[in-house]
């Protein structure tokens, strides 16, 4: 077993330190060491998007990022979206638009959408579908998710 390394990263705005083995993924460390279980594991090989978090503002599948790569990085997870006990409009749009059924894909969708809307506040339906194509949802058929993203973009106008 390789020796553990000490990593420092800004997670949801707070500086956090953690020790990890070089073989551990960021997803594993977030969930098991830092108790940030919002990011979900659906496939553990980069295909489902359930584990999406933002790394320096970019959406990444955290199951394919090694925890040691997070040194010095800024990481945002679903736990960091709502601020001061208030849901963000994006979360509100998902709720009111019934854009979740089982909800296991939801944290990933929220993170991908957050990154999308930050880069492009008024995406077309085509752009939304293109950007969210890396996040699989097996329950909703995507209709209500796309509409929730549209509603969130509407609100951002």
């Amino acid at each position, binding site marked *: 077993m390789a020796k553990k390394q000490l990593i420092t990263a800004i997670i949801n705005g707070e500086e956090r330190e953690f020790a990890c*083995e070089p*073989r551990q993924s960021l997803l594993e460390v977030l*969930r098991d060491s830092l*108790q*940030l*279980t*919002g*990011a*979900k*594991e*659906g*496939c*553990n*090989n*980069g*295909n*489902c998007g*359930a584990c999406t978090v933002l790394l320096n503002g970019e959406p990444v599948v955290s199951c394919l990022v090694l925890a040691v790569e997070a040194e010095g990085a800024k990481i945002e*997870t*679903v*736990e960091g*979206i*709502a601020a001061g006990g208030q*849901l963000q409009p994006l*979360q509100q749009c*998902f*709720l*009111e*638009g*019934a854009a*979740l*059924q*089982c*909800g*296991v*894909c*939801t*944290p990933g969708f*929220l993170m991908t959408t957050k990154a999308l809307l930050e880069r492009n506040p008024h995406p077309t*339906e085509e752009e*939304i*579908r*293109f950007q*969210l*194509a*890396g*996040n*699989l*949802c*097996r*329950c*909703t*058929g*995507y*209709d*209500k*998710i*796309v*509409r929730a993203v549209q509603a969130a973009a509407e609100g951002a106008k």
Partner: protein
Amino acid sequence: MSDNSPISYSDKKYKVLGTRPVRHDGADKVTGRAQYGADVQLPGMTHGKVLRSPHPHARIKGIDTSIAEKIDGVYAIATGEDWPDLIDKVAELGEGAVNLHDLAQNCLAVGKALYKGHAIAAVAARNVHIAEEAIAAIRVDYEVLPAVTCVLDAMKEDAPILHPGLRTETLDEPSDQPTNIDRHIHFETGDIDAGFAAADVIVEKEYKTATVHQAYIEPQVSTALWNEDGHLKIWTSTQGAFTARQQTAELLQLPVSKVTVTPCEIGGGFGGKIPVYLEPVAAILSRKCGRPVKMTMQRDEVFEGTGPTPATFMKVKLGATRDGKLTAGQAYLAYESGAFPGGMIGPGTMCVFSCVELPNAVVDGYDVCVNKPKTQPYRAPGATQAAFAFESTFNELADQLKIDPIEIRQMNGVKEGSQRVDGPVYPRIGYLECLDAAQKSAHWNTPLEGPNRGRGVAAGYWFNIGMKSSVSASINPDGTIHLLEGSTDIGGTRTSIAMQLAETIGIPAEDVLPKVVDTDSVGYTDVTGGSRTTFATGMAAHKVGLDLLQQLTARVAFLWECEPNEVQVDGDVYRYRSQQMTFKELAAKLPETGDPVIGRASVSPEGSTNGFGVHIVDVEVDPDTAKVTILRYTAIQDAGKAIHPSYVEGQMQGGAVQGIGWALNEEYFYGADHKMRNASLLDYRIPTCLDVPMIDTIIVEVPNPAHPFGVRGVGETPIVPPPAAIAEAIYQATGVRMTELPMSPPRLWKAMSQR
């Protein structure tokens, strides 16, 4: 835009039903706080992993765990030797029965591996990485046997036999030959020869469908703690806590009272999370090492080691008069059951002709073992395959007769009083109303223009099973009601059930606070499956409401010193002469009127009720690549009464998209070595956002006479029509009739180039 206004056939006005409140568990889910199976953390927790067979069929001659045991951090190892002696016993699990002996062998093999991915041994270790190292260090001595993974091959006399003791269950005398055919079902009505003799046109076709998987995004995950006092606690992702308890208790030969199952939030199931896989194995490991053991499947294990739905071979023959009246129908359905007997053939045979009145019919169904994972229910189990065969043949017949596909369905469609081929007579149903809605829809009335484009339509049917549900409720002084239920919530049923109690009491949905609790805390409740939850558990919620109302009027009568029957109840307002009081005011006074008010109810509606849907789809087929693009999609369905229209739409949209995946892409792709080649979510491609358009919905409401609010379960029907509807649209676009699923580019391209 979505045309989603319900078309109601009832004059009843409701206060809560039909509104769209935010789900009670919503905030937890959008903040990442909801506790799914993988989020369970217990002190001293260890991690389990399963060693799986690399061979589709092999005798296990020996398992050597000596090296693995010595690895630092390995706490326990389990094999099939650890099962207690299990008698052959069949347990009913809601969407099908299971033989416990087979179930145990499926969780940890005994004697033989019957499919690639079959669990052979399991390890508990300090962390998953060590458990994986230990798995790699276990040596298994296999004698590889010939395998069979195609239903037609498995039915041949010289096929490799999976279970030497298996004999076909049939109405005739069973033969004494070893076989893979575990069951033959036969229904007959009228005079089939006379029926075909009376036909002017006969169409007969053969169909094949591939193995597909439920592919829920959350893999199976379970944690078990076998306590020193002999009590077993399980936290798991399951569609039914009580069925998980029953299966685990029976496999481990424990009384059910010794097992507590806590259902975690579940990340999808669609029928695939009814059987246990990990729960009893984690329990055995926990007993051996005295610590909690958590087990999570990897995605390839989900594909190769849990239940897909059957691949099939089917034949359908239909006869009709020149003016489009069906005279006879014959169906032959051979369904794979996977490694163990007991597949989805039963509902397949009941559903194949369920949308038409057929005076003369014969249905033969065969359930066949093959070297693939044991098949499990997948949303309307067995019905989608049968509908692909029947609806496709029906569309071809309509085409030959030059009759509009909706009109021919109206002409032959089932209604109240029609008899299904397997016997039951329909009560009030909403099939013709769905067809009318389809005919009047914006989609059907907009001409489809452009080259390489086509439009298709198909119908689908599924039951709502009844079974058992229990709830209990207590009234809080602040005017809210806590509702405890045993139905795990997959798609928002906490809310759809709470709304039915809210309606009964006349209070807002938000004032009912539903909670899914563990098996110690509520009465027995069957699985969330069979489109039964909003229907049957909703019925229990209504009944508990009536129980509370009765107690409340007694309390009001006590306060106002009158007789309970003199109290008038109007929604949430109670009146007697000039006095009146709201539920909220009453709730605050309850503590002064006597004991706390609690209610309870359990139901077990007999038989099943019926849900119908009709789908319309427009496609464009790329002539060079044969890629099919879905341009427009409309799903129409009878919900009886749509409790929460958004959730009904969500079920229709989700089911339609799963059906689109099944129709166009999804399949277990096998090599000549009988091994799956695409056991990942990259290669087993379920639809993404970019593969589908918005899915328009039209909800039809023909009240279900078997439910106090007229509810019909809606979860499963929407996966039934898509493959046949898309096949027809492809035919209209290309002139090619596809009779094999999936209609993927290579297969369609081949068919198009042979045209």
